[in-house]
């Protein structure tokens, strides 16, 4: 079991000079924090922070997914070494959320193996939930019954969902990146800035 000690913050209610935090098995905590935001902290007994991270990060991710009509999380390829992966580089950031982003990778694997994506449904999910967009021209009929040809299904999503496709992408990317901070916190504890009073006392004691 690993523990770490951090100084109490300037605005804390406690009277102690430091707080001892039990990190448990740091690697396990970090892995759990990646799989489900906040789970690593719950494992360590840091329940308040764990619930805060769970609500904030998963809430941001799910809200972004909702804004984007369920289309903003998908993987263009199954390997980061593949150039096509970087066509949707945002998935690299969204993957920081862990399990919630795995369906997109599973869909990409199926498409790569020339199989039909899973979880097909009506209209928006006719190509599968979190499935990559299909290439090729796609007709689009707008509210005025005018028909245009979009160069790809991705272009169709951008046009039909504007501006929510971009908004949803931003939300889900930021959620993934925030979870990287959470993973570091689960692994090594918070990055605490020394309280301001301690800095002043040190300067007073050593004016040189």
């Amino acid at each position, binding site marked *: 079991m690993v523990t770490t000690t*951090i100084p*109490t*913050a*300037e*605005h*804390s*209610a*406690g009277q102690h000079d430091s*707080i001892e*935090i039990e990190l448990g098995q740091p690697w396990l905590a970090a892995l759990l924090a990646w799989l489900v935001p906040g789970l690593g902290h719950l494992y360590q007994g*840091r329940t*308040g*922070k764990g619930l*805060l*991270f769970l609500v*904030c*990060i998963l*809430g*941001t991710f799910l*809200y972004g997914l909702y*804004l984007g009509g369920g289309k903003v999380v998908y993987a263009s390829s199954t390997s980061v070494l593949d150039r096509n992966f970087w066509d949707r580089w945002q998935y690299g950031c969204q993957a920081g959320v862990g399990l919630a982003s795995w369906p997109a990778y599973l869909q990409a694997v199926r498409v790569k193996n020339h199989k039909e994506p899973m979880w097909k449904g009506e209209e928006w999910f006719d190509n599968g939930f979190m499935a990559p967009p299909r290439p090729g021209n796609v007709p689009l009929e707008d509210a005025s019954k005018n028909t245009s040809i979009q160069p790809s299904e991705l272009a169709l999503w951008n046009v039909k969902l504007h*501006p929510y496709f971009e*908004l949803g992408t*931003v*939300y889900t990317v*930021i*959620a993934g990146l*925030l979870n990287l*901070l*959470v993973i*570091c*916190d689960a692994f090594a*504890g*918070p*990055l*605490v*800035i020394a309280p301001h009073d301690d800095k002043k006392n040190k300067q007073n004691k050593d004016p040189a």
Partner: protein
Amino acid sequence: MLASLAPNLLIPLLATMSMWYALPLIVSVSLVCAATRQEQIGPILHHALRFGIWIVAFMAIVVGLLALMNWMA
């Protein structure tokens, strides 16, 4: 320039619905960043509030710079 700033920029900006989508993001980012720097709930909330205000101030500065460039153009 200041007299033209409000109707030409600020009111349309505040009326633009897309700008308000930044609010949940600011709250979420502030809380998470603060929680990775503190351990107790009181300092977390205090740090989050300061961080959120800093983000809004930075966005306001960028908007001001864009308005200035638009005016100069």
